[in-house]
């Protein structure tokens, strides 16, 4: 397809604008999201003490206690199995005001705080909402749409020279060309991964708003009502008002495994359950679990009293709705396959963060005045914002991790302290970037990121004695990997700081990145 030069220019302008509007949020989403892939190891790493692996009996005890003490939990309750989201099971249900309550064997009476360390959830909140309240998620939904537009327009601009340029990484004096090559190569090579995130990210953040908007137009107002049935496995059963006793969790698990085996799926491993109308004779339980070598999860719906199978959506047998949903979740969260997939997601996530960072650098470089030292105000502002927001969030996440280890030892509240450490350090980085020249700010904040990130394993070792070589020797490789990952990131930041310093000293003088004058 040959595009007219005016159309190509329009695509280039569109790509730049949506990239600029969404780039900062996307950098945060990708950097935090890359770490969120390892949510469970980070949870173990940040937990003040290692909780011993719980059993199904512990889960049963927690379920009985929650149902006996919280009337609302009888209407609707979810529960993770031990070993899925941490060693302990967690029960969760909405109270009468709609606020989610959480309980674990350690906090059986429940409360609005998610059990376990707050650090992984803080990083996850940065990933999906920039740490903002509810509107943050919708904002990220819009950002996902802009991201999709940037991907398509970027591909269209690059398409005519795709094969020629793809592997042409040209280092040398022309820095802009080098950044452009790296931006294009990473963008194109990881395109399927980015396409998956643009689509699933938009769906996860915007589906409810979208369904409310298109429902009356195309579905006669029935879309929202039908969506629950399309996404749940259990059939809707009316409450009878007749009391009945629940079968034990072990019976549900045994029945779910037996049904899965009958369908040729061996080793069905339950991950979480959803129980509704507990105590009523029409109580139902949905058990979602993994099957080795099957892509995405499968769900069975059972009668909660006798374990009779009501319906199932297992791999190979799922309808279009459930298969789409299971695939979308699995692809977004990278929770299929083995550790290799997770490491790949980490690398591609960091590569994505680079894509948005390099996009901003290219925007600045394209507008550079080569013949005069004074650069445009817009370039200086963009450079400051890029350094403050992007390097700032790296400092912020590492600060929160350091705080997670040291705050309890200082007798301070971990949850609030981590948030303060995160957002105050981020704000200070932004302020610093405003006060210094872009070249100074880039160099200094990169060194700061290197130092704070290198402090992550140090803080962990000093606080718990679990130095990474000890964790590795004790077979706790996931915990050691968090420390080693932080060290690797710190080395990366230090290398970038040195490169920035070198660029400022010896690179082309007329640039916002040069140590001459602004």
């Amino acid at each position: 397809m040959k595009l007219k030069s005016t159309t190509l220019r329009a695509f280039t302008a569109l790509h730049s604008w949506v990239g600029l509007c969404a780039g900062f949020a996307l950098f945060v989403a990708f950097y935090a999201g890359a770490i969120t892939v390892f949510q469970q190891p980070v949870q173990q790493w940040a937990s003040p003490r290692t909780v011993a692996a719980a059993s199904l009996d512990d889960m049963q005890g927690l379920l009985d206690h929650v149902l006996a003490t919280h009337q609302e939990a009888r209407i609707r309750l979810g529960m993770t199995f031990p070993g899925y989201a941490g060693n302990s099971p967690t029960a969760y249900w909405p109270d009468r005001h709609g606020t989610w309550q959480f309980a674990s064997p350690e906090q059986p009476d429940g409360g609005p705080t998610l059990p376990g360390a707050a650090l992984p959830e803080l990083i996850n909140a940065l990933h999906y909402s920039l740490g903002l309240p509810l509107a943050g998620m919708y904002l990220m939904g819009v950002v996902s749409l802009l991201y999709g537009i940037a991907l398509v327009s970027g591909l269209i601009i690059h398409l005519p020279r795709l094969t020629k340029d793809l592997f042409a990484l040209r280092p040398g004096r022309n820095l802009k060309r080098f950044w452009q090559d790296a931006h294009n190569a990473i963008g194109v090579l990881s395109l399927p991964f980015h396409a998956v995130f643009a689509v699933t990210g938009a769906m996860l953040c915007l589906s409810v708003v979208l369904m409310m908007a298109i429902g009356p137009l195309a579905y006669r107002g029935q879309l929202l009502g039908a969506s629950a049935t399309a996404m749940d496995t259990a059939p809707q059963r009316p409450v009878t008002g007749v009391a009945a006793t629940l079968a034990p969790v072990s019976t549900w698990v045994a029945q779910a495994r037996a049904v899965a085996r009958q369908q040729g799926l061996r080793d069905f491993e339950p991950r979480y359950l959803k129980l509704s109308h507990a105590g009523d004779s029409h109580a139902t339980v949905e058990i979602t679990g993994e099957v080795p070598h099957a892509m995405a999860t499968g769900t069975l719906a059972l009668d909660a009293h006798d374990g009779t199978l009501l319906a199932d959506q297992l791999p190979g047998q799922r309808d279009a709705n459930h298969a789409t949903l299971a695939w979308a979740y699995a692809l977004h969260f990278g929770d299929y396959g083995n550790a290799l997939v997770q490491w790949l997601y980490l690398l591609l996530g960091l590569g994505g963060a680079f894509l948005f960072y390099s996009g901003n650098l290219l925007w600045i470089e394209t507008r550079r005045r080569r013949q005069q030292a004074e650069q445009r105000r817009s370039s200086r502002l963009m450079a400051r914002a890029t350094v403050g927001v992007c390097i700032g969030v790296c400092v912020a996440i590492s600060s929160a991790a350091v705080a997670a280890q040291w705050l309890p030892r200082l007798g301070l509240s971990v949850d609030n302290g981590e948030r303060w450490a995160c957002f105050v350090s981020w704000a200070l980085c932004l302020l610093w970037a405003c006060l210094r020249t872009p070249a100074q700010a880039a160099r200094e904040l990169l060194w700061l990121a290197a130092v704070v990130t290198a402090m992550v394993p140090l803080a962990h070792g000093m606080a718990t004695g679990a130095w990474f070589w000890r964790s590795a020797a004790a077979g706790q490789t996931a915990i050691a990997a968090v420390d080693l990952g932080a060290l690797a990131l710190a080395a990366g930041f230090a290398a970038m700081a040195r490169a920035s310093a070198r660029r400022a000293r010896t690179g082309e003088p007329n640039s916002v990145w040069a140590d001459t004058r602004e």
Partner: protein
Amino acid sequence: MWARASAGVVPGFFLVTAVIGLVDWLLPGPWQSALVPSVLAFCPLWVGVICASLQFAGGRQAWLWLGALAGTGLLLLHALQTLDWVR
């Protein structure tokens, strides 16, 4: 560029709604059985329409074409639903 892109955003939204609705309701079986794939497909299709809108010669053409297509699509869908020819 903005006039054309905004055509992709505003009438483009209604056009994609119509297309999604028509496909979902015209597929064999009840529309509910393809609900999740339809909602999932919405955003990529909308992005596609926004990008494709830059191919129009100008903003006016983009708004007129996309608006007319969206209106026709939604009217057709409503007619089919009202006549009970799709379910």
